[in-house]
């Protein structure tokens, strides 16, 4: 395996920064490390992935997600605004970028120490900086989800799924939209279902979030033939048909960042 310091025996030599990792996820093969690099590589090995019902998601994880999401929104801003051009007013990307840049800098200045705290803080920043319908909708989604997570220092993928469900329900209530109305719900709802399916099948956090991101992307693409029934695009009626919904697209982007974060963390 080419890994220095690998001996047969128990995992007692494994010194992890987080004792929960040792308790909840003994490595599947005997290992002992003598240096931090080894610990790191063992922990990150896919075979050592924590089970999805373990507390794999902490504040640092969601801060990494925020970083990835901000980078993605910044990179795709022009594309999101372009999608918003035929059926909106060509500013979805600009507004989302302003919000996520503000959220990232707020979190860097005062990093919350729980995953719930990160989501609440990001949601609050989005409400205060994005404007339009996207600000209250995304802001409410994350704030409600964060509150549902409570003060737990780390949560499982199933807990995150339940919290996101609370947030998505709040979005549906606030915006009054139903599935098929050509809104962000058309990406978020299939993503939650896929997340549940993958977790039920015993998938890891990374596998489950990957399935959620794929379903969101598919859901966003599936908005193309739909007729908008909510938001400003609804004023276009039939003319909204044939365009991918910008809100569903940004939702898929945020979930892809979450899946990438999990993949990198090998959880």
């Amino acid at each position, binding site marked *: 395996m080419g890994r220095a310091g690998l001996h047969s025996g128990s995992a007692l030599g494994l010194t992890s920064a987080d004792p929960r990792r040792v308790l909840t996820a003994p490595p599947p093969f005997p290992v002992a490390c003598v240096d931090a690099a080894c610990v790191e590589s063992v922990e990150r090995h896919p075979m050592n992935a924590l089970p999805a019902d373990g507390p794999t998601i902490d504040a640092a994880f969601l801060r990494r997600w925020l970083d990835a999401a901000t980078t993605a929104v910044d990179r795709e801003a022009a594309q999101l605004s372009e999608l918003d051009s035929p059926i909106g007013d060509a500013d979805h990307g600009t507004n989302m970028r302003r919000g996520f840049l503000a959220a990232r800098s707020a979190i860097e200045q005062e990093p919350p120490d729980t995953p719930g705290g990160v989501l609440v803080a990001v949601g609050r920043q989005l409400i205060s900086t994005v*404007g339009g319908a996207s600000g209250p909708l995304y802001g409410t989604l994350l704030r409600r989800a964060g509150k549902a997570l409570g003060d737990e220092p780390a949560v499982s993928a199933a807990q995150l799924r339940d919290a996101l469900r609370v947030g998505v329900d709040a979005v549906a209530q606030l915006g009054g939209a139903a599935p098929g109305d050509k809104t962000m719900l058309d990406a978020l709802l299939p993503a939650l279902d896929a997340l549940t399916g993958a977790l039920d099948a015993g998938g890891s956090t990374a596998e489950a979030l990957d399935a959620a991101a794929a379903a969101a992307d598919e859901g966003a693409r599936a908005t193309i033939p739909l007729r908008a029934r909510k938001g400003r695009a609804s004023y276009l009626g039939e003319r909204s048909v044939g365009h991918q919904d910008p809100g569903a697209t940004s939702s898929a982007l945020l979930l892809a960042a979450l899946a990438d974060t999990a993949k990198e963390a090998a959880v």
Partner: protein
Amino acid sequence: MKMLINVPETVVADALRGMAVAHPELTVDVERRVIVRRGAPYEGKVGLVSGGGSGHEPLHGGFVGRGMLDAACPGEVFTSPVPDQMVRAAAAVDSGAGVLFIVKNYTGDVLNFDMAAELAEDEGVQIAKVLVNDDVAVTDSLYTAGRRGTGATLFVEKIAGAAAEEGAPLDRVAGIARRVNESSRSFGVALSACSTPSKGGPTFDLPDGELELGVGIHGEPGRERRAMMTSGEIADVAVDAVVEDLKPDAPVLVLVNGMGGTPLLELYGFAAEVHRVLTERRVPVARTLVGNYVTSLDMAGCSVTICQADEELLRLWDAPVSTPALHWG
């Protein structure tokens, strides 16, 4: 497309700095994006707060002053302002008599003002809301977010503002505002697309030789595209649309509004045509206002708003007003 700007990101802040220079009678917080009537709050007076995306100037900041709004919250171009702005505005203008939020019916504006109302009430400010939804072009149905708020916003802000200036209590000011909205209808027409600074060009495609009937103030499409028409033919379509929907049985206030890119010379000619059609339809006209008031950046085109005015609404319309964009009495 050439625009008189520095960079797209600062257009709203730059304009607010300009408003501060031009209108010392207003307190302009450029950083927090709130325009407040100097001297607010006024003892015992209900505060009027409105706001919405920028790009519709002089709406709303140009209507802050005696007899109209107490504060306005400008958002980014065509983007609703955020709740923080409205909460700050409400706190700045509340004398204890409460604050009326005047909200145009767009999903973003409604959501942000709803959140702001909750937050302001948590801070002890009594809030009432009125939704403006006067645009007849888009049919009201289960499948849209309802009618858009356009030109009637000016009537609501002016008339409710006059009522508040007279010392009417919050529920009465809100009631008058709702009555004005219910008595008003609008219809807009675009001759060209508008260009947002962030896009740097037209946000939709409207070919030469065509116009868009029923256009919204963000360039949202309306009922149909047609080959270019004369001013008189446009007046026929626009006035018929509003009269058929409102069916007025009392004299009306008329707003002949420019979308931003049409010269006053053309607007006055159009106003004459609007009067011709109203006369043909036997609708008596009490007052007429012509100008660029509820605009859509540089869009060429116009809208017609009529408001059926009883004696009280007419008296409040005639009451003195002193704002950057409306001034009489």
